[in-house]
């Protein structure tokens, strides 16, 4: 038997040490730690915003209008004379919450769905994946309008709508990975050891398919934040004077020639989050990669 198969058996025997090992390895990856630090920092700011924001988020100063950064307003103001830094801080609360929660929902459904379909194969796989095809094909816009009319607007619905869209691709990627992994020796070894399908999926298939999944997840978070802006603009989700990074960016894009700072700073916040997520994601992937680690 070759190394992954042995590793699989070792894993099966003491599943927890994998995660402890991973954490140790992650801590040695400087970029990943930086990414984690930035994310924790953003989350802390988001939590503390109501107490530390320099201005009230709805506080307008129409006469001031859109002004470039100054001593009073470090990042400038928007067309209503509202402080941009405050807007970004409050927007971060919404965006981070939507980004993480909706992605977690998508991840949970998508990975489970894809793993089961890929592992089971045959008729189960066919039915499950055709359902995914159907959901892809339904007109999203009508779906959103209906959601709004039937349930009114609230944040829970927003997570639901976004999760409902984002898990589909996740499921396809997961399924493809699992299919590829299923017939490898270490899985066969696990089957011959008499592990239940659930255990095999949880302990062997998911950890080994994590690479693309982590990457896709880190990519999903920013796209979810932008999708939120689109839905909010359509009326589902946050309503003014509340805001989010996605909304700030989409309004900023409209006036990128006249008031570039309205685009630049929210864009920076989003980009910084994405970079941190990716470094963290890559670090996690490397840390969890049993085979890679033995190289």
């Amino acid at each position, binding site marked *: 038997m070759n190394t992954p198969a042995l590793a699989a058996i070792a894993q099966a025997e003491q599943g927890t040490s994998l995660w402890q090992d991973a954490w140790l390895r992650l801590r040695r990856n400087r970029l990943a730690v930086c990414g984690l630090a930035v994310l924790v920092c953003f989350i802390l700011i988001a939590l503390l915003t109501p107490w530390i924001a320099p201005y009230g988020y*709805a506080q*307008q100063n129409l*006469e001031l209008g859109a002004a470039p950064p100054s001593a009073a307003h470090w990042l400038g103001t928007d067309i*209503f004379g509202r402080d941009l830094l405050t807007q970004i801080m409050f927007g971060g609360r919404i965006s981070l919450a939507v980004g993480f929660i909706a992605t977690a929902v998508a991840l949970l459904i998508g990975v489970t769905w894809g793993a089961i379909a890929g592992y089971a194969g045959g008729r189960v796989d066919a039915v499950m994946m055709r359902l995914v095809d159907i959901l892809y094909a339904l007109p999203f816009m009508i779906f959103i309008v209906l959601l709004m009319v039937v349930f009114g607007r609230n944040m829970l619905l927003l997570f639901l709508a976004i999760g409902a869209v984002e898990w589909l691709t996740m499921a396809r990627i997961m399924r493809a990975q699992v299919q590829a992994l299923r017939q490898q020796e270490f899985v066969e070894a696990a089957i011959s050891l008499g592990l239940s399908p659930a255990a095999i999926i949880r302990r062997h298939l998911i950890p080994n398919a994590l690479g693309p999944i982590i990457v896709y997840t880190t990519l999903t978070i920013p796209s979810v934040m932008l999708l939120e802006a689109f839905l909010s*603009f*359509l009326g589902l989700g946050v309503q*003014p004077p509340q805001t989010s990074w996605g909304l700030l960016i989409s309004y900023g894009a409209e006036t990128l020639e*006249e008031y570039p700072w309205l685009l630049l700073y929210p864009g920076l916040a989003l980009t910084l989050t994405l970079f941190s997520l990716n470094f963290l994601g890559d670090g996690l992937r490397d840390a969890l990669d049993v085979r890679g680690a033995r190289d």
Partner: protein
Amino acid sequence: MRFSALQFLCVVSASLALLACGSGESNVIQGNRDGILHFGNGTEPQGLDPHVVTGIPESHIVRALFEGLTVKNPYTLESEPGVAQSWEVSADGLTVTFHLNRAARWSNGDPMTADDYVWSWQRALSPAMGNQYAYMLYPVVNAEAFATGKLDDFTAVGVKALDAHTLQVQLNAPTPYFIQLMDHDSTFAVHRATIEKFGKATDRFTPWTRVENIVGNGPFQLTDWQLNRRIVVEKSDTYWDRDKVQLNGIVFYPTENISSEERMFRVGQLHYTQTVPLDKIPVYRAMQDSPYVNVPYLGTYYYLLNTTKPPLHDVRVRQALAMAVDRERLINTVMHGSTVPAYSITPPGTLGYQPPTLFGYDVARARALLAEAGYPDGKGWPGLELTYNTSESHLKIAVALQQMWKDALNIDVTLGNQEWKVYLDSVHQMNFDMARRGWIGDYVDPNNFLDLFLCGGGNNNTGFCDPHYDEMIQRQAPQATSREERYAILYAAETLMMQQMPILPIYTYTSNHLINPSVHGMPANLMDYVNFRYVSLQKDEKDSE
């Protein structure tokens, strides 16, 4: 990778530079030389059948391809001869006789006759046609009965061809604006033989308006129609007044995205834009020889107040909300001074009519009224939702007003945007507290705004109903013998309505365009009306850059 990306960029930019050299001439320069106007037209037209279409983009194209009995002078908006060479109104104001120009031809060479109009009006009014603007012909005797299916015999409708070139129309009541309506798509004549070649008169689906089929009577003829791309018309050689037409052709672009439209203008792809992005206005206004045009437009932007639901069932609350809005400040800041504050429904100066101004920005009075209504300093305020359709400009106004109400009255108003069709449902079923609304006049007359608020009117949507008001609008005003007397009655009615404040007027619309300086004969006017017959292009002296 950085290297290959750089290389890629170099290759791309080099090839672009080459391409750019090949086609250095912009649409505008080329158009000025060839007499072709490049016109940003907003959206893809729904169609080109004058009795089917309803929108402004459609009407621009339809007016190039068809001509009404009368047209309007773009400088004065007074009616002037179109297909009708002249017309007279009887002393009692009830009979209008049009004398058709004998030189008027269809684009296939057929002469235009009074029978064409009788047949076309029957088509326009047929219930099966589903013409949404059929009501433009309602001043005609029995037209409404025919259009609503209460009358089947069209010969009972008050329009007759006395001979091939004389059309006589009987009206229900003196209608001073009737001649103006002859310039509306819905009253245009269409070519019977062409339509019948492709189906029944009232079929909406036939391909008779396609390039290869369409027969019109306007100054231009359709030569190309590519969906969502462009519509091209060229000067017609059968049009009776062709010698006066100075353009050789027009290209209409469906410029849906207003930022894209502005950029097209900036690089010389367009002579004319349908609108201007709000935040670009200061930039263009500051330019020398500014292409920016801004004039009052016959329309009012207002909020509907639902008078059937608390807290807005109390007139004092409605008045307090209206007085707490600082319109000047809103317009001078967020809107960059591009509109005019409104304090009533009728736009000021509609054919000389000035609406009453019953209130102004007055925080102290607003606070007092709100306290009287039981909400001193906003205490006990039950909350209120402002409904508007998804759009950035509506949003901006709503956000500013939300804060003004909070500052002045200490009350919370939540914002709820709805997708367009959902919003329409909410408005028409009065399923809202307060809702954004705009009304654009179909013809220049205060009546077009004031008859909105008749009891149970389809576009009233506020619950306002006052029999005395209806009496003045429907009975007294049409009986007036002079314009002054009529306006006095309308003024009294408008005062009565605005005292009840079923709406919260915000601003009078303006039309905003970017127009290349080489374009002449496209004056700004209240109707945002373009008469392409008047338009000409100045050839560039240096011809190319």
